[in-house]
C-alpha cells in the first residue's frame, strides 16, 4: 500500500466521478429489488436437515484410507532460534509415522497473501513455514507429528525435546508505540486524512470531547476448530478444508508446492463458522507437506489451543477521538488518531480509521492510523475488521458529546446525518440511517430512557439505556462466477466455488436464481463449495451475496441470449433480442407482449438439447468507486448493573439495519443476531490474555477466553428498513458483519446511562467500574 496506490485509486475515482452512472455496473436498478417471488420471504436453510441429522460432512470427518493424524509442537518463546531439537523419543513413540521439523520439511514457498489484486491468494502472513530454525512468535509450529491415532500423535508431541537461543523480543504494545509506522494508505484509502482545518474547528467548537478508547486482542472461536483432510495423488493435491477461500487456497497451495493450479483440489461444502478466521494458515501447508513426506493422507484438526496460537484474530487498538460541535450539536471537527498492532508479517489492516469517514457529516476531519510492529502471531480479519473497534470509539465519543451537549444521543445523530460521502462528496447509493434509528427507538421504548445517568434502578440493579450506530461498507468482488445449467425438464442448476459458513449461501442464491429465472424454488438447485466449480472469490468483507448474485445475474443474461439463439426462427420469440424478453413461467416471454412466450422445455426440445449451460461473472465493481456505499445500523441496548458487585447484565438488545433489501428474513435475522452476540462478547467478555512478558497467549481454551453464554444473551429484536439499493444486485447490501459493529458502544453507552461511569476499555468487566 503506497503513495502510488493512493494516486491510482484517486485518479480512477476522479474519472468515475465524471462518468455518467449509466455507464457503470448497477446503472439501472435490478428488477429483483422489487419484483420478488421467493426473495424476501422466510426460507429455512436447505442444509439444515443434513446438519441436524449429522450427515453434513465437515473437513475433519472426510473418511480416507490409511489416514495419519497430526499434532503440533509450538514454540514457547517469541523470538530466537532453535538450539536443539531432539525428536528421537517422539519418533520411537507408539504409532508415530513421521516427525517433521525444519530439518526434513520440504522446501516450500511463502504463499501469496490475501489482497485486492490477486484473487487466488489466501496467505495470512509473509513468514516462511517451517523452513528454518528461526522463531518469530510464541506459538509458531516447530514440529509436526504424524501418528496412526490423534492420541498417539498428541502423546509423541510431548516427547519432543527443544531448547532455544532466545533473542530479545518486542511484545509490549506501549513500547511498540514509540516505533509505530504510518503507511501512506490503509486498505483502499489514503491513511492520513486532513480536511477543512480540524485543529482550528476543534479549538473553536462550542462543545468538545477528547477521549482515548482501548480494545484488546481477540481470538477467533468458530465452533468448528480449523481442520483439513489432505491427500496427494502423485502431483495432485487434494484438500478437504474448512475455508471461506476455496479457490484462493487452491491457488496459494499450488504456489507453495510449485505445482500446477489445476492440480490442487479444495473442497469445503460446509464450514462450522468462519468470521474471517477460515483462510489459509500454517496448518494446511504443514499438513500437506507432512502428507507428502509420509506418503500417506493426513488429517489436521487443530485443538482450541493450537487454533489460538496459529490463527490470528482481531488486533489490539488504542484510539483517540476528539469531537467538536456547535451549541446545536452540529459536528465541526472529527479527530480520530490511533494505534493498532500489525506485525510486519501481517497483511491485515484493522482499519478503524475508516469508520469516522462515512458515518456523519462534519466540517473537518483529522484521521490517521499508526501500526505497531511486535513479535506476535499475525493479526487477521475478524468479523467487522476496522468497523468493530472503530465504531466502539466513534460511537462512545458521540455519546460523550451528546452528554456534554445535554442532548438526546439519537437527536445528535439526526443533526449530523450525512447526505453524501462526508469526505469525497460522492453520492450515496442508498442511505437512511435515521429510518433505522426511528424503528429501533420505537421497538426498545427509547422514551423510557432517563436523560440523567444513574436515575433508574430496581433494588441494587441500576438500569440504563444506550444506542450507537453500526456501519460496514458494501463490497462486491470481481471474478466470482456461476454456471447455470438449464435442463429440458425445466430444472436449473447453479454451481459456483462459493462458500457456506452457516449463513445460508445456497439457500439464498437458490431463491435468487428461482426469481431470476422465473422458476419455482423446487426447480432450482445450487452446488457450492468445491474448487472444480466455476471460480469464486472469498467469502469475506460481507461480499459474497453481492458477488455471487452479480455472477448469477450475468449468467442469466447469457442464458437468455443462448436460449434465443437455440429457439431460432420457428418460435413466438423469433427475432427478439435478450433485452426484449424476460424469464417468466418456466420460459421466456416478451416484456411488452406477454403472448409471445415459449417454455424452456419446448426451446430445448426443438433444439435437440438435453441442457444448456452458461457461465456469468461478477464484473469490476466500479460502482464502489463512484458511489458511497455503506450499510448502517442503529443498535439499542438496555443494561442492568449491580451497584454491589458491578456485574453487568444486558436486558434487551435491538438492532435496526439499513442494508438495502433483505433477501431471506430467516437467514438474515440469524446473521444479524449472531453478529450482535459477537458484539456482546466484544463488549463484555472477550479478551485474549496475551502475556506481554513472553508474547504468549494464556487464554487458550474457552474456559479462559470468555464468549457470551445463553444466559448472557437476552431476547434480541432485529428489524430492517428494507429500502432497495438501486446500485446493487437484488437491491441488497452485505449483512454478514454489520451486526457486530456498534454493539460494544451501545452497551458501553447504556452502562454509562445506568451508572454514570464511563468505561473506555473493552471488555467492560465489573472491576473496570471501579466501585471501590
Amino acid at each position, binding site marked *: 500500500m503506497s503513495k502510488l496506490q493512493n494516486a491510482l485509486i484517486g485518479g480512477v475515482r476522479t474519472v468515475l466521478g465524471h462518468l455518467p452512472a449509466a455507464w457503470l455496473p448497477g446503472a439501472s436498478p435490478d428488477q429483483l429489488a422489487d419484483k420478488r417471488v421467493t426473495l424476501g420471504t422466510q426460507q429455512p436453510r436447505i442444509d439444515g436437515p443434513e446438519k441436524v441429522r449429522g450427515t453434513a460432512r465437515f473437513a475433519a470427518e472426510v473418511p480416507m484410507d490409511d489416514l495419519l493424524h497430526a499434532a503440533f509442537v509450538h514454540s514457547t518463546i517469541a523470538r530466537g532460534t532453535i538450539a536443539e531439537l531432539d525428536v528421537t523419543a517422539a519418533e520411537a513413540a507408539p504409532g508415530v509415522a513421521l516427525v517433521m521439523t525444519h530439518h526434513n520439511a520440504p522446501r516450500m514457498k511463502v504463499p501469496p497473501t490475501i489482497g485486492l489484486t490477486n484473487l487466488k491468494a489466501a496467505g495470512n502472513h509473509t513468514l516462511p513455514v517451517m523452513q528454518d530454525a528461526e522463531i518469530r512468535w510464541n506459538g509458531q509450529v516447530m514440529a509436526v507429528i504424524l501418528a496412526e491415532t490423534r492420541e498417539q500423535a498428541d502423546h509423541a508431541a510431548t516427547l519432543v525435546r527443544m531448547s532455544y537461543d532466545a533473542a530479545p523480543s518486542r511484545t509490549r504494545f506501549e513500547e511498540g508505540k514509540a516505533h509505530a509506522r504510518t503507511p501512506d494508505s490503509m486498505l483502499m484509502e489514503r491513511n492520513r486524512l486532513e480536511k477543512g482545518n480540524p485543529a482550528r474547528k476543534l479549538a473553536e467548537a462550542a462543545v468538545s470531547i477528547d477521549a482515548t478508547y482501548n480494545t484488546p486482542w481477540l481470538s477467533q472461536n468458530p465452533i468448528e476448530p480449523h481442520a483439513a483432510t489432505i491427500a496427494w495423488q502423485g502431483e495432485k493435491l487434494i484438500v478437504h478444508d474448512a475455508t471461506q477461500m476455496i479457490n484462493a487456497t487452491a491457488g496459494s497451495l499450488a504456489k507453495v508446492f510449485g505445482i500446477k493450479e489445476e492440480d490442487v483440489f479444495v473442497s469445503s461444502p460446509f464450514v462450522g463458522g468462519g468470521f474471517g478466521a477460515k483462510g489459509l494458515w500454517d496448518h494446511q501447508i504443514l499438513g500437506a507437506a507432512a502428507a507428502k513426506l509420509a506418503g500417506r493422507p493426513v488429517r489436521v484438526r487443530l485443538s482450541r489451543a493450537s487454533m489460538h496460537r496459529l490463527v490470528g484474530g482481531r488486533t489490539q487498538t488504542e484510539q483517540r477521538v476528539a469531537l467538536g460541535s456547535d451549541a446545536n450539536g452540529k459536528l465541526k471537527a472529527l479527530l480520530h488518531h490511533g494505534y493498532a498492532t500489525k506485525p510486519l508479517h501481517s497483511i491485515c489492516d484493522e482499519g478503524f480509521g475508516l469508520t469516522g469517514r462515512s458515518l456523519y457529516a462534519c466540517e473537518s476531519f483529522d484521521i490517521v492510523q499508526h501500526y505497531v510492529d511486535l513479535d506476535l502471531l499475525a493479526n487477521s480479519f475478524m468479523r467487522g475488521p476496522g468497523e468493530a473497534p472503530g465504531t466502539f470509539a466513534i460511537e462512545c465519543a458521540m455519546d460523550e458529546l451528546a452528554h456534554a451537549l445535554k442532548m438526546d444521543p439519537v437527536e445528535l445523530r439526526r443533526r449530523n446525518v450525512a447526505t453524501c460521502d462526508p469526505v469525497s462528496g460522492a453520492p450515496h447509493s442508498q442511505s437512511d440511517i435515521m429510518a433505522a434509528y426511528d424503528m429501533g427507538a420505537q421497538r426498545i421504548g427509547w422514551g423510557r430512557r432517563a436523560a440523567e445517568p444513574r436515575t433508574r434502578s430496581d433494588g441494587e440493579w441500576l438500569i440504563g439505556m444506550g444506542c450507537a450506530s453500526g456501519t460496514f461498507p458494501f463490497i462486491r468482488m470481481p471474478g466470482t462466477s456461476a454456471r447455470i445449467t438449464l435442463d429440458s425438464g425445466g430444472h436449473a442448476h447453479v454451481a459456483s466455488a462459493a462458500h457456506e459458513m452457516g449463513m445460508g449461501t445456497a439457500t439464498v442464491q437458490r431463491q435468487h436464481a428461482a426469481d431470476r429465472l422465473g422458476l419455482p424454488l423446487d426447480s432450482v438447485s445450487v452446488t457450492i463449495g468445491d474448487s472444480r466449480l466455476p471460480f469464486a472469490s472469498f467469502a469475506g468483507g460481507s461480499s459474497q451475496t453481492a458477488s455471487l448474485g452479480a455472477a448469477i445475474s450475468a449468467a442469466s443474461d447469457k442464458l437468455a441470449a443462448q436460449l434465443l439463439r437455440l429457439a431460432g426462427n420457428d418460435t413466438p420469440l423469433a427475432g427478439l433480442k435478450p433485452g426484449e424478453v424476460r424469464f417468466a413461467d418456466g420460459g421466456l416471454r416478451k416484456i411488452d407482449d406477454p403472448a409471445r412466450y415459449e417454455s424452456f422445455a419446448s426451446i430445448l426440445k426443438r433444439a435437440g438439447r438435453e441442457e444448456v449451460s452458461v457461465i456469468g461473472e461478477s464484473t469490476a465493481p466500479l460502482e464502489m468507486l463512484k458511489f458511497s456505499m455503506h450499510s448502517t445500523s442503529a443498535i439499542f441496548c438496555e443494561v442492568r448493573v449491580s451497584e454491589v458487585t*458491578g456485574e453487568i447484565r444486558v436486558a434487551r438488545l435491538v438492532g435496526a439495519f439499513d442494508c438495502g433489501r433483505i433477501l431471506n428474513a430467516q437467514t438474515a435475522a440469524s446473521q444479524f443476531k449472531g453478529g450482535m452476540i459477537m458484539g456482546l462478547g466484544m463488549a463484555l467478555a472477550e479478551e485474549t490474555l496475551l502475556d506481554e512478558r513472553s508474547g504468549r497467549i494464556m487464554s487458550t481454551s474457552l*474456559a479462559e477466553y470468555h464468549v457470551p453464554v445463553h444466559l448472557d444473551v437476552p431476547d434480541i429484536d432485529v428489524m430492517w428498513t428494507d429500502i432497495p439499493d438501486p446500485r446493487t444486485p437484488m437491491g441488497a447490501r452485505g449483512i454478514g458483519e454489520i451486526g457486530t459493529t456498534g454493539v460494544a458502544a451501545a452497551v458501553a453507552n447504556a452502562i454509562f446511562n445506568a451508572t454514570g461511569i464511563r468505561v473506555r476499555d473493552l471488555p467492560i468487566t465489573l472491576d473496570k467500574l471501579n466501585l471501590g
Partner: protein
Amino acid sequence: MTPFAYRTASDRADALSAHSGARFLGGGTNLVDLLRQNVESAAELVDVSRLPGSISETVNGGLLVGASVKNSALAAHPLVRSRYPMLSRALLAGASAQIRNMATVGGNIMQRTRCVYFYDAEGARCNKRQPGSGCDAIGGFNRYHAILGASEDCVATHPSDMCVALTALDAVVHIAGPDGERTVALTEFHQLPGATPHIETLLKPGELITAVELPPAGASATHSEYRKVRDRSSYAFALISVAGGLEVVDGKVADVRIALGGVAAKPWRATRAEAALKGLPATRENFLAAAAEELTAARPLDGNAFKVGLTQRTIAAVLTSLAGERA
C-alpha cells in the same frame, strides 16, 4: 496426554489396593482435562465414581453424602434444598448441567486451581505444577487469584463453589486409607500454599475421600444464601463468592456463617468477621465493618485489588438480604 491404565474399582478395598502412581478418578471433569494438558500424569486411573454412594440422614440429624454422589444429585436432594439451601445454590452456580451430572462430591473437593500458568505445562512456570520453577502468575494475569493466605510461591485460588458452602456449614471429610479411616474438618482439609504449593490437601498417598458429613442444620444453615460474582452470567469460575447464613434474634446476630470463594487457595471461612458480628445488631453497617475486619489481612496483587472491596460489599449484601433488609 501420556498413556495410562484404567480400571474400575469394584469396592472400597479394591480401590485402596491401588498402587502408588495411580490416581482416583471421579467424574473426570477436571482430572481428564489436566491429563490432556499434560499438567498431570498417572500410571493408572482407578475409577471410583461407581462405588456406592448415597445421601442419608445421620442419627444425630445431620447428612452423610457419599463421595461418588453426583453434584447434580446433591443439589437436587430435598433435604439439601430445605435444610442447607446455600449448598444447593452453590452447586447449581458451578459449571454446567452436563458437568454437574458427571462431577462427584469427592472429585469436586479435590479439583485443582484454574490458574492459567498452572494449566500451561509447555510454556509457563508454576511452583504448584513443578515445585521450585517459579510463579508466572505474580506479575502476570492474576485477576482470578488470591487476596488472602497466598505466598510468594503461589497465589492460586481453589475454584470450587460447593466447598465454599460446605466450609460454611462445618462439613467433615471422611477419609479411608491404608492405615484405616479418619475424619477431618473441611476447614482443615485444604492447605494454604506457603513454600509448598504443590501440597494442596491433608490427603496422604493412597487415601480416598469416602464421604462428606454435614452436622445437623441449625437456623443459620437453613437461612442461608450463596452468591457468586462473575463477569458473565453462567459457566464461569467465581471472581469471588460468598456463602452466608444468619440467625437473628431480637434484631441481633445470634449466629452467622460466612465462607468465601475465589479469594484463597482454600475455601475461606471468615472466622474474624463471624466473631466480630456475634451479638451485634444485624445492620448493613455492621456487616460491612465485620467484612472489612476479615479483609484487613488481604494482600491483593496487580490484577485483583478490586476483589477486596467487592468481597466486602458482597458479604454485606448477602447478610443484609438474609437479615431482611435491602442491600
